[in-house]
């Protein structure tokens, strides 16, 4: 179920270069699984901004966003006490499997939903390996908090300023039997080429509604065009047939 809810900003703090964590208070009962997203009204902009749920608990929602254009730039000016409308409970989220050696792969701000995913896998007794890719060390976020959960985290940076120099595909572990991935499309496609294991990709697409009504956000699947906001944002490798 999804619903349009009013949330109140609790904190809005920088955590990496151009990257902020926005903590809001409100009803999070529409959220059921890691990898879902919300659609956030930003004052002065017509469309809402779709953002993955980075973390949530009863009454508290955390989003991690990167300043990309004018809307996310305006979000940095949201202050504690400000209210905003958020459509919550959107998308399918990751489907948790019983894989033995799961791998979590994130790139850039696509790392946002992976903390909650890692925690979920760990809580089920699985031991995910995690590989996160960024442009440079000053953009790295969530790595430490995922390590604190007890998962091993490898970092790749394009400029080599932290971890492996290169892309996430240069830092993949030798053994894994399933992956969960979120990041820019070129990264996801590179991952698909570099691997043969089954897995899930969380996609991005420009959206109007976010709840399935406009057909604005489709991606091509083996079943034809499917909505990223409704049938996705997470699609399995077989569905996408990349």
């Amino acid at each position, binding site marked *: *179920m*999804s*619903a*349009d809810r009013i949330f109140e900003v609790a904190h809005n703090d920088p955590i990496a270069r151009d990257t902020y964590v926005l903590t809001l208070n409100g009803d999070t009962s529409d959220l059921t699984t890691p990898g879902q997203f919300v659609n956030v*009204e930003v004052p002065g*902009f*017509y*469309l*809402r901004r779709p953002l993955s749920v980075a973390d949530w608990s009863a009454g508290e929602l955390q989003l991690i966003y990167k300043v990309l254009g004018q*809307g996310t730039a305006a979000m940095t000016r949201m202050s504690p006490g400000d209210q905003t*409308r958020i*459509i919550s*409970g959107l998308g399918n989220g990751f489907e948790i499997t019983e894989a033995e050696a799961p791998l979590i792969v994130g790139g850039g701000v696509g790392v946002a939903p992976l903390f909650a995913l890692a925690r979920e896998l760990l809580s089920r007794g699985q031991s995910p390996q995690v590989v996160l890719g960024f442009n440079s060390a000053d953009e790295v976020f969530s790595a430490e908090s995922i390590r604190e959960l007890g998962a091993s985290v490898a970092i790749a940076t394009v400029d080599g300023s932290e971890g492996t120099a290169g892309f996430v595909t240069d830092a993949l572990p030798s053994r894994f039997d399933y992956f969960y991935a979120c990041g820019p499309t070129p990264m996801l496609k590179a991952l698909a080429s570099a691997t043969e294991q089954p897995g899930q990709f969380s996609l991005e*697409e*420009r*959206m*109007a*509604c976010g*709840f*399935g*009504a*406009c*057909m*604005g*956000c*489709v*991606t091509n699947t083996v079943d*034809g*065009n499917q909505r990223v906001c*409704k049938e996705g944002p997470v699609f399995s490798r077989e569905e996408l047939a990349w």
Partner: protein
Amino acid sequence: MVNPLAVQLGTTTLQNPLIPASGCFGFGDEFLDFYDPNILGAVALKGTTRDARDGNATPRIAETPAGMINSIGLQNPGIDVVLSKKLPHLATFYSQPVILNISGFSIDDYVASCAAADGKAEIIELNVSCPNVHGGGISFGSSCPLLVEVVRAVREVVTQSQLFIKLSPNVTDIVEMARGAVDAGADGLTLINTLLGMRIDLKRRHPVIAAGAGGFSGPAIFPIAVRMIHAVKSAIDVPIMGSGGVASASDALEMMMAGATAVQVGAESLRDPMVIPRIIDELPALLDELEIDQIADVIGEALAS
């Protein structure tokens, strides 16, 4: 007690004038999380074509000041699936009037879909903003002779449903187009469909929308819709469904004063899924404030008399 929001749209009575616009309400079930569609005046379903369509490449959506651009390209499962699956499914939870929005790329397309659809919904709404593949890509809605031809042909096969023609605003003379459609047999008009618009991504130096230009709608276009409805209703006494930028109860009333009998809400209901129920809720108080007993009394009130 009389329902102060009821309006008579041609031969169809609506419990209120509020209708989600075609393409902004799927086939009726995408809003079930948000509200019960039985509160609506009617629903307009997603534009349907003779055959199933995958639609355009993505990105299909761009943002504008007070509006948006879409380039869905009529992704839909085709008229047979709509009639055999979507309508029966809709009927399981919805019992107010239905508007089937029909698109086509040739007169044959339109006639085939409309013949199949006739009588299956209270209103068939012809979307004539699509390019005519047999006419060098000119859209049916931007050439009066072409428009007359398609309306005449469709009128032959639409005998049980009301036939409304949804006009494109991308024309020099909207009154001429309206007159053509009505003279060719339309029962009513929907005014307006989207304008042509484009945004460009500065980083990619390329249009945001994959197809280049797209259909521009939302509050930004409201004054264009009001002026076209006003111009048409001033010239022709025909039932009009208003469409274009409605985002509030006062917008709905303003469009009705310009000449609309009912009011469709598109883009705004995508960014704010609760806007239509809120408008329906707020209308009675607004009518009181303006000392209006029956909403139907305001239709065309702002026309010169």
